[in-house]
């Protein structure tokens, strides 16, 4: 038992303390958080926009061309893997410009997440009863006002669990950012592993992702409970 603990401590020292290797993990964690956060904002903005266009078309048959463009966007993004999208953005779209890798990652993951968020939000909008919409219009609200004050608040509550799910997927999906030599958390662990050949960085990386997701789920749970306060 003592030998095992000694081995573990030696391994730990070699993987994280020696040569300041823990810095790879910390720097990687920072990059992962920055990419996830910015991609989240881009994804949500894009997702809501696309969802509103699509829902408006579904309800009123207006915005036909925009709806068509959104459909193409969703089909292409959902139909191709995020790693391939990332590589295409890096090596095809920005082939001739020396662009920051973080920007590439934010764009790739944001665009990717946007397509999924759009469908989640649209499902929420469509799930709100048509009677709510009619009630809004008969009270004198115009279309936009009905959307903003009546439909969206109800839709938001419906989609929160699915949206949270998407954020968790996004956070974990950023682990492929290493493909464009961006040093995110996973790549940070991989760099240590390529020096020490130990299992430890993998476990550490997994634990950090797990902790982040658990923390996030907790926050989401709190928000859901708050939003349910109005239900009686």
């Amino acid at each position, binding site marked *: 038992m003592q030998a095992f603990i000694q081995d573990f401590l030696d391994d730990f020292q070699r993987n994280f303390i020696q040569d300041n290797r823990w810095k790879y993990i910390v720097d990687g964690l920072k990059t992962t958080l920055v990419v996830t956060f910015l991609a989240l904002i881009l994804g949500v*903005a894009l997702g809501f926009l696309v969802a509103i266009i699509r829902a408006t078309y579904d309800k009123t048959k207006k915005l036909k061309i925009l709806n068509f463009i959104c459909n193409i966007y969703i089909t292409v993004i959902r139909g191709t893997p995020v790693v391939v999208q990332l590589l295409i953005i890096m*090596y095809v779209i*920005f082939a*001739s410009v*020396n662009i920051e890798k973080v920007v590439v990652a934010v764009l790739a993951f944001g665009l990717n997440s946007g397509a999924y968020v759009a469908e989640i939000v649209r499902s929420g909008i469509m799930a709100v009863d048509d009677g709510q919409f009619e009630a809004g219009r008969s009270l004198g609200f115009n279309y936009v006002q009905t959307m903003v004050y009546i439909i969206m608040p109800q839709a938001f509550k419906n989609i929160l669990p699915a949206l949270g799910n998407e954020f968790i997927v996004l956070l974990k999906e950023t682990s492929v950012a*290493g*493909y464009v030599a961006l040093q995110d958390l996973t790549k940070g662990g991989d760099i240590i*592993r390529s020096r*020490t050949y130990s299992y430890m960085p993998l476990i550490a990386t997994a634990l950090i992702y797990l902790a982040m997701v658990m923390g996030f789920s907790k926050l989401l749970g709190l928000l859901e409970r708050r939003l349910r306060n109005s239900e009686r």
Partner: protein
Amino acid sequence: MKKLVSLLLAMACMLSLVACGGKGAKQITSLDDLEGAKIGVQLGTTGDIYATDDYGDENIERYNKGAEAVQALKQGKIDAVIIDNEPAKAFVAENEGLKILETAYTEEQYAHAFKQGGELKEQFNKAIKELKEDGTFDAIVAYYIEGKGEAYKSPEGIEYKGKLVMATNAEFPPYEYYENEVIVGIDVDLARAIGDKLGYEIEIADMAFDSIIPAVKAGKADFAAAGLTITEDRLKEVDFADSYYTGVQVVIVNK
């Protein structure tokens, strides 16, 4: 709605500004110019390990594949790539506008790696010695590097008593690479020749370079042949057979 659109437009404008703000690539003409330059390497290779020591962690860009580092170099995303001589030649031959610096970065010894304490290492040493003496090894090298003669063929009528799994990263011409959907190369032919001598069939497991040593350590592969250099750190993890080839690390830059 209009607000959202204008916000998005503003974002697009900002992004395009960022996209154009990248600084121009640095022209490298000798090893001295590498100081402060952005250097691309393949994760976990000796090029990665030495360059990190020599030029500082923050200047090294670690790609999963050597070919991706070369692509980034071509597009001016990095200033130089440090990689083994033979793959470098293959990359430069394929890509106009790239060249190899005349001065080599460093020299190194390639060898097969095994799980520590196994008996395979001694058998490999003996087989490699025989293959070098009877000219088989030279013939393999001549075929893959100079394009002379033929690839190695197993003698007919061999009865194998089992198989050995060889861990490699088949993106490293001419040591191991895909040709017509089959993995070929110096390391592959040499492994087959050794296998024929020892009575084992060789099965190739293609994996990421940084997974090779963990795979051998964990017994997922019986040995590794991947242009693998003997280093002190690696010797703590695996056993190495006698070196079969001297590799050279070189620097690829834009012309």
